[in-house]
């Protein structure tokens, strides 16, 4: 007979998890449920009258061509940010992996951008590209390119993509470098003896072996581009010109806090929430499957 160990019921475990539960409740569950509830309401701008309308906010959103357009813009923006920052980070990591001398110094420098707040990062890029004052705008002018992201929508988009990607490069770089350094050196040497040059080695050995990391970063970067780029966009373009850089999360803010259409704003944030949950599920499902070692 197995003896079952009995613990006398005690309050202690509950007390120990209580802070975590309280934080989750107050800062996540409560606002999320509020948003969900709010998304079923239509409220006037002064908060004097409220009407429960079921899914009317959602229906209105998907009928609104501006919202649908924002959806596609966000997809484009996220893919561009993820692609650009991961691509750059991959190249930097591939070179850092080969550096022997001064590797720590090089790595430290590359990690700095990650420590900069999004708004500051945005401010930096605004200064550099300011159409009248910016040094890059000045240089581009010398090359015959007229830079004015305050009037030109695609230039504005390009600018926020660059700023957002730049900030994420450091993070991606760290993960890529760690992944590359976990590949046994002798595998790379074996490939060198087998006749593969550095580029060939990269694409046939290193890149396939870091696939799990790449996939993980892709999801993280998409989520980053979806949500954490608000500060950069707010600092650089405020979503303009003419909504050219308004992505979903910026529209949530703009419709809710500027336009005071709280119902629609809440509905949009619920949609965003669904997207991030979907992304997370995808990440966990695939990452467990695709580990190669």
């Amino acid at each position, binding site marked *: 007979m197995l003896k079952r160990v009995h613990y006398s019921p005690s309050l202690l475990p509950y007390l120990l998890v209580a802070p975590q539960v309280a934080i989750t409740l107050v800062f996540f569950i409560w606002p999320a449920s509020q948003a969900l509830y709010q998304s079923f309401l239509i409220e006037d701008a002064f908060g004097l009258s409220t009407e429960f309308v079921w899914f009317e906010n959602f229906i209105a959103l998907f009928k609104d061509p501006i919202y649908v357009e924002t959806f596609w813009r966000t997809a484009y923006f996220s893919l561009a940010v993820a692609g650009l920052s991961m691509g750059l980070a991959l190249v930097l990591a591939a070179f850092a992996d080969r550096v022997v001398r001064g590797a720590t110094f090089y790595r430290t420098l590359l990690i700095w951008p990650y420590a900069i707040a999004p708004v500051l990062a945005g401010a930096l890029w605004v200064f550099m590209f300011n159409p009248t004052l910016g040094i890059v705008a000045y240089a581009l002018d010398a090359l015959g390119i007229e830079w004015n992201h305050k009037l030109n929508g695609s230039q504005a988009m390009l600018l926020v993509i660059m700023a957002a990607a730049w900030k994420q490069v450091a993070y991606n770089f760290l993960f890529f470098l760690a992944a590359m350094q976990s590949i046994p050196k*002798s*595998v790379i*040497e*074996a*490939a*060198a*003896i087998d*006749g*593969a040059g550095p580029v060939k080695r990269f694409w046939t050995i290193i890149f396939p072996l870091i696939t799990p990391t790449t996939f993980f970063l892709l999801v993280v970067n998409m989520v980053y581009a979806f949500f954490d780029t608000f500060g950069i966009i707010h600092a650089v373009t405020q979503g303009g010109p003419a909504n050219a850089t308004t992505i979903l999360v910026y529209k949530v803010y703009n419709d809710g806090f500027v336009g005071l259409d709280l119902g629609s704003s809440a509905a949009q944030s619920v949609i965003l929430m669904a997207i991030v949950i979907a992304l997370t599920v995808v990440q966990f499902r695939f990452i467990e499957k695709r580990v190669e070692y």
Partner: protein
Amino acid sequence: MAELILKDLHKSYGSTEVLHGVSGDIADGEFVVIVGPSGCGKSTLLRMIAGLEGITSGEVRIGGRVVNDLEPAERDIAMVFQNYALYPHMSVRQNMAYGLKIRGLPKAEIERRVNEAADILEIRQYLDRKPRQLSGGQRQRVAMGRAIVREPEVFLFDEPLSNLDAKLRVQMRLEIRKLQERLGVTSVYVTHDQVEAMTLGDRLMVLNAGHVEQFGTPLELYERPASVFVAGFIGSPAMNFLPAEGIEGGLLRLESGATLPGARGAGPVTLGMRPEHLIADSEGPIRIRVSVLEQLGSNTLVHGTLEGTEREMVASLPGIHQIPEGEVLGFLIRSDELHQFDAATGKRL
């Protein structure tokens, strides 16, 4: 077909020199084992031949071609690594075909070579598996298969058996030897295991602290070790070393006061006696006070000290013996089996 010539190879990392002028000619089809304790520079030497480490000075020639400045890929070598270094994301077949594909061989030729190597190594049924689905011994075969299919001028082995268990190691050792004889490819094999070295090599290069102590056949090393280091490294149980002094009448005087004939000069020397060369003789001058016996069945190892001193000695007696602890046994040694080394330099006299 290629001979491999090493000429005065030096290797320094910054100001520390790890190889101090290694030379040696390795004939076409020869199997040479580089052996030495860890940190002696043997792996570095192999990696210099492979082109994975730069050459500080000196020359490596493969088939008459100086390869110092060639990339590993251009040297026409294949290497088997200690941890196998298989590509984990490729199947066994892809692992073996990788180098051939890069060299742009026609598909049919790749297919033929891979199948042929797989047949030789008996890994045909694993061709579509990933390395992680194989056991250590199977991975080892795949690593060798990857080397064979390339049909290189030189095979390099970097301690390929050290990750295997003892039994498998003995088996793979034999297979490597047979394979090398069959293919007749010049091979350089690095190991720290002297038994592996003795059984595998046509010739052995004994390295110690970046110097070549001796380069010769296993029997030469056993019968005429060039230095105290080689003498102590080759043979199991290890050789006994005793300080002695050459005195008048061509005699050698041991610390115990006993004398042996055959001195090659006056002054202090180090004597080397292999345990298996000590012959029990009640009148023998080498008198050992027995402390421990090791019964191996076919022979008995007698551990003890030289009488009147604290010098540890081992003698190997054929057959089974029962000797009480503390008893003093006398031993003889034939003068042609008595090794004499310079007490200061450790070189053979």
